[in-house]
Structure formats: C-alpha cells, structure tokens
C-alpha cells in the first residue's frame, strides 16, 4: 500500500485545541511540511505568541519558546543573534503583532533580522473572546465594537504588509490566504520561499496569512470563508510586496 498522506515529522502527534474551521491548524501543517521538505526540522526554533496559538509548542515536533504578548520578534532576535545557525520563526496573531507588538515587529524588520514571521490575520482577538483588533474591518462587530468598527473613532484597519513594505530593509513580504485549496498551495509556496531565504541567510521574511475565526466572527466555517472573501480580500490584497532581487537580475539591471 502506498502512503499518500501522513503527518509531517515536524508536527507532533497531538490533537490541537483549535475550533472547527479555524485556519490555525492548516497553517501549522503548512509550516511543518515546508520545514520537512527543506530538511530544517532539527535546526528549527519556533516562537509561540500569546493568542489562540499560545500552545503551538505542543503541536510542533522541534524546539520552541513561548513569548510574552507581542514580543516574539524580540525573542526571535535574541535567539538568532545568539545562534545565527538556527532556523527561527515567530508565529503571531494580529493583536499580538499589529497592536501590542507593533514596535517589536517594525524594529526587527527594519534591522533585517534574519528570521521568518508567520503572521495570522483573522481580524479579531480570538483568544480573549472576540474583541476588536487593529485589523478588524470597518463596520465589523466585535465585543468591543458592538456597533461595528467606527473608523471615525478608531481609524482604519492596519495593513501590515504595506506598512512593512514601506521600510527599505525587509526584503521578503507577502500576503497569502488559506480559505481554498488554490490559496493554500500558494501560501505554502510563499512560506517555502520565506524559509529558504532564511536558510540562505538572505533577509528578514514576512508572510501574512488571511485567516478565519468562525467562533468569534459568529459564522459557520463555510460562511466565514465567504466573509473573508467578500470583506477582507478587497482590503487586504493577496500579493507579493517585496522579494529580494536575484543576483543575476541585479547585475543585469
């Protein structure tokens, strides 16, 4: 019998606590597959954030550190500066990265720290019960924006890729999504590119993944997918923002 689907070695043999239809699980698997395929598991150190993925260290089968809320890029910098040979990535939610950890992510990106950021944008604070995030859509109802996000009062959602792409140093920035198989394949390609760039000590790499939080959005997983397509995709375009020039291209230019 031929095995056509199995658990990547980089994932541990545990059932996750994520809600049905939550995309955290899908993204975990993509990271694991990429690390397996690149043969990087034994050098990998992940950093779990504070957010729904706070227990991510239980689900991966390699070294992990658990960081304070928003500080994963600082922790990653510490690890990478101490041990540049390790393959380091942060796994952060939108509250973690774009709110409380804004300073840490911008400065790590701007220094060009050679680690990879996996940024989970689900437009909400999942873990604490569905409060407004800096990425919450205009008009989106959350427990702390019960009449919908009022942009006159709290401004428009922050687009992290665009913000970081305005910096000169960070060289790989891409936004992807995981709400259908075609997008998942593309997301894996982007993650693989990001980790390869880190492996080759090229640059800081940032991959934003548009995600669903059916539980706190108050939708079925299918409705959540539709909501993401209709509301998030137009505001958060799926595209590559920056990619380091290949040696040859640069020379040619």
């Amino acid at each position: 019998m031929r095995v056509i689907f199995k658990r990547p070695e980089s994932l541990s043999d545990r059932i996750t606590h994520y809600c049905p239809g939550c995309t955290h699980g899908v993204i975990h698997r993509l990271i694991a597959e990429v690390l397996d395929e690149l043969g990087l598991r034994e050098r990998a150190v992940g950093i779990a954030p504070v957010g729904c993925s706070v227990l991510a260290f239980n689900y991966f089968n390699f070294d992990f550190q658990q960081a304070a809320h928003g500080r994963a890029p600082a922790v990653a910098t510490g690890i990478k500066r101490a041990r540049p040979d390790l393959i380091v990535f942060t796994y952060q939610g939108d509250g973690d990265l774009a709110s409380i950890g804004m300073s840490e992510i911008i400065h790590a990106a701007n220094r060009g720290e050679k680690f990879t950021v996996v940024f989970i944008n689900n437009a909400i604070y999942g873990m604490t019960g569905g409060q407004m995030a800096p990425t919450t859509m205009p008009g989106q109802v959350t427990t702390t924006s019960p009449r919908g996000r009022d942009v006159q009062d709290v401004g428009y959602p922050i687009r992290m890729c665009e913000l970081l792409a305005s910096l000169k140093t960070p060289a790989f920035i891409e936004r992807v999504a995981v709400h259908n198989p075609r997008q998942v394949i593309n997301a894996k390609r982007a993650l693989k590119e990001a980790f390869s760039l880190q492996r080759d000590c090229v640059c800081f790499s940032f991959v934003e993944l548009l995600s669903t939080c059916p539980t706190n959005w108050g939708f079925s997983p299918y409705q959540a997918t539709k909501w993401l397509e209709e509301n998030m995709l137009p505001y958060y375009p799926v595209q590559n923002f920056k990619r380091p020039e290949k040696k040859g291209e640069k020379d040619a230019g």
Partner: protein
Amino acid sequence: MAKVLMKGNEAIAESAVRAGGLLYFGYPITPQSEIGEYLARRMPEVGGCFLQIESEVAVANLLYGAAGAGARVWTSSSSPGISLMMEGLSYIAAAELPCVVVNIARCGPGLGGILPSQGDYLQAVKGGGHGDYHCLVLAPSSVQEAVDLMPLAFDRADRYRNPVIVLGDGMIGQMMEPVEFKEHNFPPLPPKDWATTGCKGRKPNVINSLYLDPVEEEKLNFKLAAKYEEMKRKEIRFEEMETDKPYQVLLVAYGTTARVCKTAMQRLRADGINTALLRPITLFPFPEDRVYELAQRAEFVLTVEMSTGQMVEDVRLAVGRTRPVYFYGRTGGIVPSPEEVVETVKNHLRR
C-alpha cells in the same frame, strides 16, 4: 595586569566581557549609557555582539530568547528602563533562564532625574514584575567590587538558572576609581541541555512559562521557592566593619551610602562614639540573621539609604522589636553627607 582608572560603568562592561558576557542588548539611558558606548567599541574586538534595541521592553525579551538558546547574555539600564523590563524578567524567572541585568539606578519615581538613588531596592529584591519570583540581587559599593561581582553574577545566573540583578546607582556608575581585573575560577557548570539549540538527536526542548494546569503551576512555584531557599543558605554576602569591638550603634547601609557611613564612622570614633557597620552585598537573599545578631550588641540600629525607607523594611523584619531601628534617608539625587549621619547618630544617642 596594571591597575587602570575606570568609571563604574566602563568597568562593569569590561568585567562582563571578561566573564564571557559577549552578548549584550540595551537601550540608552543616563546615567548608564557609558556601558553601551563602551561595549559598542569593545565587543567587535572580542567577537561579541552589542546591539542597541528599540526599547527596554524588547530588550528583556531578547534576553529571554538568547538565554533560552543557551547564550550568556546581559543588559543594563537605569530605573525607568528597568521598570519596562519587568515583563520580560518575570517570564525569564518563570522559564528559569539565566541572565544578568545591571541597574544603575537614578532618582524617581517617574522620569525623576539623572542623579543617584536607592529607590529601586524594593523593586529589585521583592520580585519587581508580576508573579511569585525573586532575582538574586548584588549591590557593589565600589568600582572594584562592581568588577568583582560581574563574574559572580554570570556564574550564579547560570548555576541557579535565574536572573541576577546587579543594583548600583548613578554614583557607582559614574565615579572613577582604580581597578584591577582578576581571574575568577568557578566550579564547572552543568550543561545547558534544556536550551533550544535545534532538536537533532534529542526530544524537542520548550522554553515556556505558561501553565494552565493549576497543579503544574503550583509545582513550578514551589520549585522556584526551593531555589530561593537554597540561595538563602548559600549566597548571603555582606561586609562587616568594627564589629569585633564593642559598639553602641549598628549602621546598616549598602552601596554608595555604605561609603558615606564609613566616613561618618571615623568622625564618630574621633568623638568617642563607637559604631559598627553591616553592609549587605546580597540584597536578596538579605543577611537577616547577621543583622539580628549584630543588632543585639548595639543600643539601636540606624539604616541609611538614598530613599525614604526601603531596605529598612528588611532590617526591621530581621531585628523585630528586639532593638529600635531608626532610619535616615535623602532622596532626589542627594547623597546623605557623613555629617548628616554623624548628627543622626548623636541625636538618637541623646534621646
């Protein structure tokens, strides 16, 4: 090596480098910026890393990451910056990671001023951040002692897997004194087999402070408490002066104020008043037994600080009601003068 004349801040930096503290992250703040400036020059010479980071909040979390990856890592700051590090320090203590944090304290609260203070005593010795933890706290009172305590700080941080605070003040950081760098030999340390260094050939390591199971969290708390008890048994350090002769008054002071007390003691002796000094070098663990013993031979105890009364709380806990414990303090960056200490002693004796 020939003696050199160094500022406290530079000497601390050089001593740390010699003790293998080759990874330093920091953010500028007066009166300790010379530490970073010295290292920015020195680290490249020794293959170390100096990195200026965006905030002290981030710095403490870099320490967490680097210590978790097995490195000997340290930072320095002054009071407002140390407050920002409390988040990270709490995580570091919980995850049982070694690191050294130097606080060249300045007066406060708030932004305060740039002059020296001992107003961070309680923050340093009682935990400082959230949760049930302690740092080992070392308090030098001369530039030479600061030099000698740095290697000890690194060793004990590794040995106990616990953050160590070196608590100085602006005076210790800014003054210049001749110093000598000696070799320090410590027994071998256990391997850092818990560090996240890549899981090749072993099970994955996790650096973590999250315990959702109350039984597991309590286990951690009891484990940490046992570690602090061990420190109390093994790490208490202090200096005594004139305790081998009869004395009327026991002075208790650390760091800069201990230097002031030493001058005051000479004056008092000239006036026929005998005093003794106990100078804690470890502030946590505090030399409580010795304070109690020495207090019993005195009429009263006088604690002198650059605060409105912080260490005196620990002195009172140690002495209890067996002897009066008086306090003299100056703040705002004003260092008590030897005269003031002399007068205070005389006033209490007259009563």
